[in-house]
């Protein structure tokens, strides 16, 4: 390999690098990183704005839908305050029978249940379709 002007360590080829003694399976930072929800100032029990770091319309709109499906929720909406910041604000106002945090938790549960149903149905339908296609091929 040609000599390098950079420090050896930086420019060392991965193929030449000696294997680390102990294969430290570093805990997956991105996957396990604690996600922190920030409650914006001015919140009360039944009305609060939550700020989600690193989220956008994908979760924002889906979560808004799930929370709005709860009859104890008076209002739910989301916004992305600035396009160059990956932040999503979610506003929840509930009736007195519940709290904003509970409504949010229920919304997340709703979405997770929904995902399970979609996965189940998709798998069965796909398998059925593949089987019927296979039959047609043989015929």
């Amino acid at each position, binding site marked *: *390999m*040609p000599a390098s002007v950079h420090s050896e360590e930086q*420019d060392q*080829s*991965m*193929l030449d*690098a000696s294997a*680390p003694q102990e*294969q430290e*399976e*570093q805990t*997956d*930072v*991105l*996957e396990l990183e*604690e*996600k*922190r*929800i920030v*409650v914006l100032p001015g919140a009360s029990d039944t009305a609060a704005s939550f700020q*989600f770091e690193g*989220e*956008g*319309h*994908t*979760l924002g*709109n*889906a*979560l*808004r*839908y*799930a929370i*709005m*499906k*709860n*009859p104890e*929720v*008076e209002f739910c909406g989301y916004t992305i305050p600035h396009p160059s910041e990956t932040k999503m604000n979610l506003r929840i106002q509930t009736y007195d029978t519940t709290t904003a*945090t509970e409504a*949010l*938790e229920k919304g*997340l*549960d*709703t*979405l*997770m*249940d*929904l*995902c*399970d*149903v*979609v*996965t189940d*149905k*998709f798998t069965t*339908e*796909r398998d059925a*379709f*593949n089987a019927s*296609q296979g039959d047609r091929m043989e015929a």
Partner: protein
Amino acid sequence: MAPLVPSQEELDRRRLVDINPETVSNIPSTDFPGHWPGESHEWSLEKFKNDLKIEFHRNERFEASFSLIGVDASIANAFRRILMAEVPSIAIEFVFVHNNTSVIQDEVLAQRLGLIPLKGSVEGINWMRWFKKPTEDDPEGSNPADYNTIVLRLDVECTKNPDADPQEEDPRKLYKNAHVYAKDLTFHPVGRQDQFFVGMDTIQPVNPDILIAKLRPGQAIEMELHCIKGIGADHAKFSPVATASYRLLPDIKILRPIIGEDAKKFAKCFPSGVIGLEPVTREEAAQKGSGYEGHEGEQKAVVVDPFKDTVSRECLRHEEFQGKVKLGRMRDHFIFNIESVGQFESDSLFLESVKVLKLKCARWKRGLTDLMR
């Protein structure tokens, strides 16, 4: 008090997004508690389970088409967005140029290499972890290791072909390695990678014939390429889909009879197969006020397959069809089309997107329990 249940007619009306000559109307979904007085619309998993339908239209390895019926636009859109931007795949990210005497500059070449779609054992790709780049908060980042980096090499040198005909003008015959293709990338497994990426499952370009560079005798490219796992939100090269899109099922209603020459013209306003022609039956002609009186045996227009319609709205431009036809789209019928780049099978990509959405919720829920404590 038991909640009110609207009539089927009313429910059908709510399912439609109306398409008018210049506008669309009845756009937002209204199935929320509190929108319609007396009706429930509360989330019910049981109801969702019963109402959800999935119909496959096509399921090829790298292209799938299916209908997702009975979900809200926000959910369908979340799946579509996740497919494009958040399902991970691998691509070349770091290029170490040891030698490049070709006419194509290092940085341009590196950019081209990054965009080459790669494939390999799905199991192996799932086993791989993220490679964390150094940031301001964490100047260390991750070290390249077998579980986060895949090494490819590109070593080509162009030479004269001594066996070539002196009259030859095609550089590919005149020289050896005049064209560098994606198939010239070689995979070098490190550590445990050779347990996953073996045989057909080695890391290789999806399309071996992608032209990377052109060389002339004496020019050479020698580089080491590091591939990492990433998501489409970071760079489009990590997106596992070529396209992931949906459209709403079109709906065509013929309100008043369209007969004879008009029917033929009407059928021509749509792609073939959408509108069919049928003779008016004796019963229809005998029925007073049906609009078919005295037209027995003539051709009338009938809707055969709205699925094929492109909703061009051509029929709304013609005087003779005014008030006779109503166009719309089914609010909760999403016709998905997913085309894989080649690393994953297209149907498993959708399942992957559902998994990502669930994972996101689970992660935020954990963050929420911290908040509630």
